[in-house]
């Protein structure tokens, strides 16, 4: 730990001679949160912001319609392989059963620790053409989907396949990221990975031509589940 102490001591030493404009002993109180928007307004704002970013937003009236929406998306491309989260982690009960009934058999997402087995499994998962996940929350101001990991929530399901279908409960919408953190103070600590997703992957690195579908998905569907 020699370097830890030497670096921390160097910092302490420097703090006796530093010049840090605007530095205060404590931060000013956090700004008062925006008055609660009703869930309808949140959903409208989320839908508007997400659509502007290229997310295909679906607003089915019932859970049954939501299932149909998902199946319709799958039938558009008839994927040979799909990746999904387990039913416990999706806002649509028994969705995996519905998928199997239509001959969509989700791959086992568990990546082994052994390096050789790991590479083999990754190659297999890379064949998935559609990934179906839940979302912990949605942010109305930026149209962001909040997707976290846990034992049955594969990260790669929202990353490897070219199409990502995110199922988001309408009750899980928040006006801002700060509001989300205030409502879910342990969500980040409790997951090895939590990602805010605002649309399909993109780049402008070639002559600033916007190209969609770089390393992450090319198409993102956001299904607002009632």
């Amino acid at each position, binding site marked *: *730990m020699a*370097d*830890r102490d*030497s*670096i*921390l001591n*160097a*910092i302490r*030493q*420097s*703090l006796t001679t*530093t*010049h*840090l404009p*605007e*530095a*205060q002993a*404590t*931060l*000013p109180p956090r*700004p008062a949160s925006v008055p609660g928007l009703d869930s309808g307004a949140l959903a409208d704002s989320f839908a508007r*912001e997400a659509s502007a970013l290229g997310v295909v937003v679906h607003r089915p009236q019932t859970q049954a319609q939501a299932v149909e929406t998902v199946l319709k998306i799958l039938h558009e491309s008839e994927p040979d392989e799909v990746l999904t989260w387990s039913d416990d982690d999706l806002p649509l009960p028994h969705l995996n059963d519905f998928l199997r009934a239509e001959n969509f058999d989700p791959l086992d*997402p*568990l*990546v082994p*620790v052994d*390096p050789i087995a790991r*590479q083999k499994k*990754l190659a297999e998962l*890379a064949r998935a053409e559609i990934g179906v996940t839940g979302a912990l929350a949605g942010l109305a*101001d930026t149209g*962001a989907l909040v997707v976290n*990991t846990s*034992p049955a929530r*594969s*990260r*790669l399901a929202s990353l490897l396949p070219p199409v990502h279908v995110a199922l988001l409960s309408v009750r899980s919408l928040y006006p801002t990221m*700060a509001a989300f*953190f205030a409502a879910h*103070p342990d969500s*980040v*600590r409790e997951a*090895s*990975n*939590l*990602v805010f997703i*605002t649309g*399909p*992957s993109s*780049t*402008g*690195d*070639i*002559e*600033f*031509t916007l*190209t969609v579908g*770089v*390393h*992450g998905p090319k198409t993102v569907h956001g299904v607002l589940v009632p």
Partner: protein
Amino acid sequence: MQSNLTFHERVEDALQNQTLHLALDRATGRFTSLRANAFASFADNGDAIRDRARMIRAHTLSRLDTYLAQFADAVEAAGGHVHWASTAEAANTVVIQIAKQNNVRSIVKGKSMVTEETHLNHALESAGLTVIESDLGEYIIQLAGETPSHIIAPAIHKTKEQIGQLLHEKIGMPLTDEPSKMTAAARAKLRDVFLNADMGISGVNFGVAETGTICLVENEGNGRLTTTAPRIHLAMMGIERLVPTLHDLSVMLQVLARSATGQKLSVYTNLITGPRRADADGPDQLHVVLVDNGRSRVLGTEVAEILYCIRCGACLNACPVYQQIGGHAYGGVYTGPVGAVLTPALYGIDLWSELPHASSLCGACREVCPVRIDIPRMLLQLRDEGHRAGKTPGWLKLGLPFYRLAATTPWVFHLGAWLARTATRLLAAQGWLTKLPPPLSGWTASRDFPAFAPRSFSAQFKRRKNHKGTAFTK
């Protein structure tokens, strides 16, 4: 690695380079208007949020020892390993050690300024490891064996035809000039790399002290893949890149993407807390390498404020000097206004005394900075340090006492002005002098000098008064 050319030679080179100019015009123009639009969506143009972002950075640095210790402890509590590197060499050595201990042979990398600062790629390759850059622009540059022309759009100096040709030659892509086909080819090639690499190396946009979380911001998905597919994730982080809490992070994120690319949020904002748990996927090991490399020393100086920087690139795009000379001319990893302060601060004014002078002190950088860093103040500070270190050029050391004499002795001033009027009007071409004989060549080496007007202001003032009774009517 310093170039063999002097600063002035590098600037001359840049000014002659037409391709670079095309790239800089495209990139800086585009990013400045995207940024402006993004902040216009705030009622106050983002003033309040930027003030708060500044306070967060200032407060964090004022207690950096506490927050850094808290962050490191939290990373370890989440199952990660923390390594402390006082120098660039120590950082690279640690990475190589971790690689060797874990039988790593191939590495995939996300974009990270601090890894360029330590010259990590070079060190890894010298140790026999393969390193592939996964950001599309950086990948293109790596294939071409070139260096980036712009911090956010590294390959923007290349036309799509050139990129198509490059990908055709290097990775066997069928020849095309369509960006979507090129991206698809790079995606396929890099997918292999992601899925077979033993280690993924990333930078860190912000570390969050309260949870030991690493925040990584990106658009392509290469950051996510780099930190998910390989069995080891190594994140390199400058010790100053911290915020205290998640709420503070949400404030910083409101200004980062807007300042860099005009987006409200980047496509992916990753929050990584420790390695995989009982998860389906993710890396089995997380290593965080904390890099000092002079930052703790800079913290104790008058230019500590430069450590507030969140590496958005807005100052580069706004700077009239950067817009003309681009990044290479600065000679180091950090370029533009932030580089003009950070490079001499980290590496010493002795080697870098010209950089603080590569500025007209217009303050455009301070105007656009999301944490309102007062770069002009620090440029003046560093110019003063350079002077005390004996770096002021001879012509200026001689010339200033003469100027002081003229400015305090009216008859000398008027005589000098008369001489200058006559001489500059004789010598000027189209109103400007671009080359003067020594010692005045010291000025024209980096600045043009305007021809004086045919009549001095006081003469014109007097004339109008005499003709019209008052000097103020037209």
